[in-house]
Structure formats: C-alpha cells, structure tokens
C-alpha cells in the first residue's frame, strides 16, 4: 500500500491570497489526483497531475485557479489561487500505481482550508 502525506493539514487564509498544498507519496506512483470535498459532501475530482506535463483538469476547474505541479513520481502540489470563501473545503491528494490498472487508489489525510 502507499502512504500519502499532505502539508499543511489545515490553514486559515485571507480572501485574495493563494495557498500551495503539498502531497508526498512514499513510493513511486504513476497516477496522482487532486480532489475537493466540501463539508458533508462527496469527493469531486479537480485534476489528474501528470508527471512532466500539464495536469488534466475536470470540467469546472481551470489551471489559472488551481495550478498543479508534479515534478517527479512521488510529489505533487496544488495551489488554490486568489481564494474566496467559496474555496473553503477539504483538498485531498490521491495516488495509484499504473494507468488503467486495478490497483487500489489511496488517499492522503486531506488539507482543511478555511477562507475568510
């Protein structure tokens, strides 16, 4: 199994600022994902973080708002830019081994973000 850590675990930010969330996996994985989970709701996929190329964003999410980096096979960052209170949410990093494989998808502990 993969162990995923995220930093920070929580933060309170001011409107208009940006926050970068880091995700570290303890082993090399092919697939890394970023999800948003609003209070009491299910998970929504923001994007797939691609190593060495631009992330693949889901409908409703754009690179200018949620820039993502993935410099290697174990690390990714998600930036929430120009934040507003509507961005208050839990952001989860997730990872899996091989593209299209049946391997289990693991999740990090999440970053709880509150925007004032």
């Amino acid at each position: 199994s993969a162990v995923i850590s995220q930093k920070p675990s929580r933060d309170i930010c001011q409107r208009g600022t940006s926050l970068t969330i880091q995700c570290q996996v303890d082993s090399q994985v092919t697939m890394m994902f970023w999800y948003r989970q609003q209070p009491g709701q299910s998970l929504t996929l923001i994007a797939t973080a691609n190593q060495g190329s631009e992330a693949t964003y889901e409908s409703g999410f754009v690179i200018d708002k949620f820039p993502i980096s993935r410099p290697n096979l174990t690390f990714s960052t998600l930036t929430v830019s120009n934040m507003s209170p509507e961005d208050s949410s839990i952001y989860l990093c997730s990872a899996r081994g091989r593209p299209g494989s049946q391997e289990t998808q693991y999740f990090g502990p999440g970053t709880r973000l509150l925007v004032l």
Partner: protein
Amino acid sequence: AQTVTQSQPEMSVQEAETVTLSCTYDTSESDYYLFWYKQPPSRQMILVIRQEAYKQQNATENRFSVNFQKAAKSFSLKISDSQLGDAAMYFCAYRSEGADKLIFGTGTRLQVFP
C-alpha cells in the same frame, strides 16, 4: 456517463449488530471495478473492500462483505458484528476498466450505538 447512487444519507446500527449500506450504479461497460471507502471523522479515506466486475464471487474482508448483483447494478456493503470504530462516512465508488477516474457516490453516514 457512469453514475453512482447511495440512497441512504444516514444509517445507524447497534454495536454487534449487522447493517447493510446500499449502492447502485449506472454504466454501459462490462468490465469495471467497484469499491467501498470509509472516511472516519479524522477524514483519512481508507479502502474497505474491492470487487472486480468479472468475478461472480462476492468479495469479503473480515467483517465486511458485499452483495454484488451485476445485472441489477447493485453493490451493497454488509458490516457484521458492528463496532464503535465502524462509525464513519462510507463512499461507494466505480472505475471502468482501463480508466483513471474514480466516480464516487454521495456517501452514507453510519452511526454505531453502544
């Protein structure tokens, strides 16, 4: 497009009893995977159980088992001998064979009473 439906927003069970959480899904694919994830209040998502659609035998992991009905597109989770630590949000999820995206249901909050 594939969808996952969990029709029970909340369920409760008494300690040591059995509870079943429902999940239905809609897909035109024949090869896919189904998952149940648990998210305790500490919010770390952990995999409870996985089922491959090509397998007729229902998956079992200790006190957790599924009732997979492929024709009915149903994938329920049974928790036997419920424990206080089972209290959590439970998410049903689907992934097509060869796809990267995991599709989640809306979740069922399970309360366990002593």
